[in-house]
């Protein structure tokens, strides 16, 4: 079995790679969003901390 045959999937390429592509996209986007949320949260906490330090 060669690779082009494998990717053609007997004519079902769009359906199969569409499914797995969307799965990959969703997982990657979700991980990026969670990472981003963590970065934002930590930034927020830094800001709060700095503000407290300035006050004291």
């Amino acid at each position, binding site marked *: 079995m060669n690779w082009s045959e494998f990717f053609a999937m007997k004519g079902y390429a769009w359906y199969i790679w569409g*499914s797995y592509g969307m799965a990959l996209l969703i997982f990657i986007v979700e991980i990026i969003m969670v990472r981003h949320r963590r970065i934002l949260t930590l930034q927020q906490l830094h800001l709060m901390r700095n503000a407290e330090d300035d006050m004291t």
Partner: protein
Amino acid sequence: MAINWFKYSSPSTFYGVAGKMVPWFAWSAAILFVVGLYISFFVAPTDIQQSEAYRIMFIHVPASILSMFIYLVMAGYAALGLIFNTRLSSMMASALAPTGALLAFLSLWTGALWGKPMWGAWWVWDARLTSELILLFLYLGFIALHASIDDPRRADRASALLAIIGSVNVPIIYFSVQWWNTLHQGASVKFTGTSMHVAMQQGMYTMMLAVWLYAIAVSLLRVRCIILERECKAQWVSELTEVRR
């Protein structure tokens, strides 16, 4: 009896525990994904009836089952939070919701791409499909309600109630749509379950386990963010190394 479980229900302890658990879940999920995809595409044979198109099953079935299961887990956590007033349970519930919603969407998407070559239609008003769609709506309602209430404690309680009502409703919706469908147009789109090849089963279970572990890992990551956001005024948060630096 040596383990004090309530110790782990405090956000400050759980924050650290979750941080230690995430890499384990994430890496085993990654390994299982590789193994599962290998079995799905290179070991599992071509199906006689469906040719190669059936390979969508390896992502579709785990996504659908997990999306329903996560809803039940979410409702369970929400109920715990409501009854015992434990903050962490409510945080877990709101951390699970986006993952569940994404999996429900993925299940619909892959289902459509599988349905088109097999049934000749992107969408049919079958009981399973319709209840999956409604499950997605229930997730979106939960997220929207939680997001629109400013006071987090009140948001937890309101959305917990919604989650519980929703979980009571999911079976009712499923059966109502099933009867409606069979009454109206007959079961035209029953997927006849031929006996599955062993390699197909293995591929599916491996993928299911992989998605499961992935869901745990990503919701633990999310609950860590939620804990930090909610507890931002607490002393222990300001003493964390990632906050101090």
